[in-house]
């Protein structure tokens, strides 16, 4: 029950820094909620790690996962509130810091907010946190009255003694409850008794986003703060040979011209614009190394070689697919590819850092506070206990902010200017060319088909990058990257294949490049779903079968996969007449991040080859639905992200560097192209699946299959901007 005060040293440090330096812009820190500055005051002890209740009944719920627009804050609050029996209107939330968690033996569990796991992997302990707090509040009231706790109930932040009707508000007993020993047994409600979970509570954080008052990392201002704008060698792995400091040092506002590690430079100035202007003028001699020879063509050649390589890591195998295909009277083969993608969150990378020889404090948007702390400590040259991460809400994440290359550089910059708050801000151009990209892969799919048109064997050879080998090489399994096979696994409750083939081989020829890959919303599902779902469509058309009927035959042992597929088929009217203007209809399904999803799309393609997506229906079985409206928003949002990649997204490589430098060359879907989205949320109970990502993976294959139905053109290489969709 110790008060959370370990951000106080950093605040003192800041005030000291303010006295030492010039106050440029006034003090502009986000409110406590966003900063996660611990307990609201020492006078209000927490009931437990998750729950603080003020004497006036205000309820503060603590958050370890980060909010980046996906609604996790509201969903987690719903789960705590479900068991806490508190007044929803009195709820606010605050971030805890990883430093606080470190000091309390990870009292708040994991901070990682990725893999669609903010809800599903917190649900058990946050609900128990709420339930334990309720039990303690009821016990405190019962003790006050001298009655058995079993005679008392709690509702809307009020404890009632049944026999006498006496009541006490949570705010009146919270201080007593805080002194009690937490209960050993914390039973949770049966889902059938939920009243807060599975309701569409409005988000807790909308208002500030409509007035411009929400403070993001790039909005932070501190007394004496300077702004750093960095530039890393545009060729990954390149280094600084020489910096002509005179080319920028005398420009207005410039305070420092720095080298950052081996491979980056930064200009530090009074304002962003001054720093950026000077950085643009700064002459740097880069040593790009041998990576300067790499291009999209050389990468493609390497991947193509892998399609037929003798050695590959096996992801899923039953029977003897090669023999079955070899013996089949008919063989079907196709090669697909999927390019690099940039996360391109609307808010470019940024972090504000104060470094001294004794301490390093960081204010930043991150998807993983604990990883940010570890990265900071290492870069700062300090123990984690002398560092902390004060989180602000993210201006988008999508996976980019689970890794902290940008933060490490920000710390290395601040370390060169001790005691001064340094806000490091990337330009959009830096964000585009220094990304961590969706991996590049190709796949060759080969099916053996018998005289009845049935698949006798399927071989899916994936060739391309491994994320784990770049990000977590220790997680490789004897060299094999299991994440490559998302959605294709034979077993498991996360990303299992939804079909049974008599003979199957899915394998991966790992072909890495110097372009750093990373988790990108949907991750490897994005291409795996395109590869498998479009190829099955090819088989269906080549054998004269209905694509839905073919899938159903293969899905008899996969009832939950089939459930969502049937749901979208029924909603879109599969098999019925197409609505006026619609020329083709496509369908796809996949399981990922613990959820089952399917999509059906209606499209048309005009004589100029311009695609119009008229309608998309999406179904999600996520086991339990915490907030149906939030799920709907995630489905819509995932489609925008997935369709942006399908229509426009591709990062290409020339002379070792990414060619796309801003939204003019890395275009994304806008309002005029946004289709109508109908969301079917169909939680079947008994498991917790994610919702932030899963539906993204079925958007592209459903549309590609619909394009084929409309035009007879099978698109195997995306994005569509580079393809001619006109009818053959």
């Amino acid at each position, binding site marked *: 029950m110790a008060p959370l005060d370990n951000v106080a040293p950093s605040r003192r440090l800041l005030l000291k820094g303010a006295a030492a330096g010039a106050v440029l*812009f*006034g003090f*502009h820190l986000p409110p406590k909620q966003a900063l996660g500055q611990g307990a609201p005051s020492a006078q209000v002890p927490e009931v437990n790690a998750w729950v603080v209740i003020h004497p006036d009944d205000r309820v503060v719920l603590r958050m370890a996962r980060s909010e*980046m*627009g*996906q*609604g996790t804050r509201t969903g987690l609050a719903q789960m705590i509130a479900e068991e806490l029996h508190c007044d929803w209107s009195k709820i606010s939330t605050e971030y805890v810091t990883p430093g606080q968690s470190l000091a309390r033996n990870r009292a708040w569990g994991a901070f990682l907010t990725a893999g669609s796991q903010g809800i599903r992997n917190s649900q058990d302990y946050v609900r128990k946190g709420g339930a334990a707090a309720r039990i303690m509040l009821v016990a405190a009231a019962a003790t006050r009255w001298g009655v058995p706790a079993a005679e008392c109930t709690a509702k809307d932040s009020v404890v009632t003694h049944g026999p006498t009707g006496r009541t006490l508000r949570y705010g009146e007993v919270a201080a007593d409850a805080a002194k009690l020993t937490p209960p050993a047994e914390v039973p949770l409600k049966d889902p059938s008794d939920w009243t807060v979970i599975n309701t569409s509570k*409005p*988000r807790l*954080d*909308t*208002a500030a*986003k*409509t*007035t*411009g*008052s*929400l*403070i*993001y990392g*790039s*909005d932070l*201002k501190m007394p004496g703060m300077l*702004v750093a704008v960095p530039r890393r060698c545009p060729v990954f792995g390149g280094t600084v040979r020489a910096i002509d400091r005179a080319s920028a040092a005398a420009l*207005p506002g410039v305070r420092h011209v720095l080298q950052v590690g081996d491979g980056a430079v930064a200009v530090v100035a009074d*304002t*962003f*614009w001054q720093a950026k202007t000077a950085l643009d003028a700064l002459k740097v001699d880069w040593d790009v190394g041998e990576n300067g020879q790499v291009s999209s063509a050389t990468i493609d050649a390497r991947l193509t070689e892998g399609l037929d390589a003798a050695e590959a890591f096996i992801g899923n195998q039953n029977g003897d697919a090669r023999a079955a295909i070899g013996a089949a009277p008919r063989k079907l083969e196709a090669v697909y590819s999927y390019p690099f993608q940039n996360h391109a*969150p*609307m*808010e*470019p990378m940024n972090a504000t850092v104060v470094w001294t020889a004794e301490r390093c404090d960081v204010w930043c948007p991150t998807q993983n506070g604990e990883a940010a702390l570890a990265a900071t400590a290492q870069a700062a040259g300090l123990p984690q206990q002398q560092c902390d991460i004060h989180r602000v*809400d*993210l*201006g*988008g*994440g*999508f996976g980019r902010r689970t890794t902290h290359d940008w933060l490490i550089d920000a710390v290395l910059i601040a370390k060169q200017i001790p005691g001064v708050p340094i806000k490091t801000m990337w330009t*959009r*151009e830096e964000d585009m060319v220094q990304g961590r990209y969706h991996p590049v892969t190709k796949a060759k799919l080969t099916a053996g088909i018998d005289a009845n048109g049935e698949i006798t064997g399927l071989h899916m050879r994936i060739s391309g990058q491994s994320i784990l080998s770049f990000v977590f090489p220790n997680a490789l399994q004897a060299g094999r990257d299991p994440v490559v096979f998302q959605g294709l696994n034979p077993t498991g409750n996360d990303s299992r294949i939804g079909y049974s083939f008599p003979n199957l081989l899915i394998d991966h020829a790992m072909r890495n490049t110097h372009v750093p890959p990373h988790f990108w919303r949907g991750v490897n599902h994005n291409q795996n779903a395109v590869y498998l779902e479009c190829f099955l469509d090819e088989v269906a058309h080549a054998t004269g079968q209905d694509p839905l009927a073919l899938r159903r035959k293969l899905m008899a042992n996969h009832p939950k996969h089939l459930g969502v597929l049937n749901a979208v088929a029924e909603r879109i009217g599969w098999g019925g007449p197409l609505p006026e203007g619609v020329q083709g209809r496509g369908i796809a399904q996949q399981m990922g991040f613990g959820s089952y999803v399917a999509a059906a799309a209606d499209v048309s393609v005009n004589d100029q080859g311009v695609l119009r997506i008229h309608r998309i229906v999406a179904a999600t079985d996520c086991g339990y639905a915490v907030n149906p*409206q939030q799920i709907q*928003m995630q489905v*819509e*949002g*995932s*489609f*925008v*992200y997935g369709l*942006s990649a399908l229509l426009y997204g591709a990062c290409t490589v020339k002379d070792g560097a990414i060619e796309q430098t*801003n*939204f*003019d060359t890395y275009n*994304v*879907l*806008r*309002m*005029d192209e*946004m289709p*109508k*989205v109908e969301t079917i949320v169909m939680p079947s109970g008994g498991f917790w699946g994610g919702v932030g990502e899963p539906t993204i993976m079925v958007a592209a294959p459903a549309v590609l299959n619909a394009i084929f139905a409309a035009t007879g053109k099978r698109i195997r290489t995306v994005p569509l901007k580079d393809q001619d969709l006109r009818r053959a």
Partner: protein
Amino acid sequence: MAKLNVNGAVVELDVATETPLLWALRDHAGLTGTKYGCGIAACGACTVHIDGQAIRSCITPVSALDESQKIVTIEGLSPDGNHPVQVAWRELDVPQCGFCQSGMIMAAAALLAQTPRPTDEDINVAMSNICRCGTYNRVRAGIHKAAAGGITG
């Protein structure tokens, strides 16, 4: 040094005149509700009003402006955050991460001021802002809702 009329008040800002309005607002006027997303007028996160017109402040140098031109930012759109667009946005929970939403709201408010009952096609033309979270369908619904509630600009 620049003299600008921002949210109803003339302010004198110690800023080099080639500086884009976006950065004059954010770093000199202390108005951080207007966001930097691309710097090339491609994304619309920096949208503000000049004399009622939605413009992209990231490519508008301060030198192009004088105090006769009325600049309105998200902070000045309404005195209490209750412009019909803001109200509709809250009622529909339009924002996700929210970073693009100041620009979205300013673009929507300018559209409604000129076209009180916009069609979907009007919205498509006026709203070219980028949202990576994918709030487009709710933005559209929010504009229609604000229009139905009667817009006063």
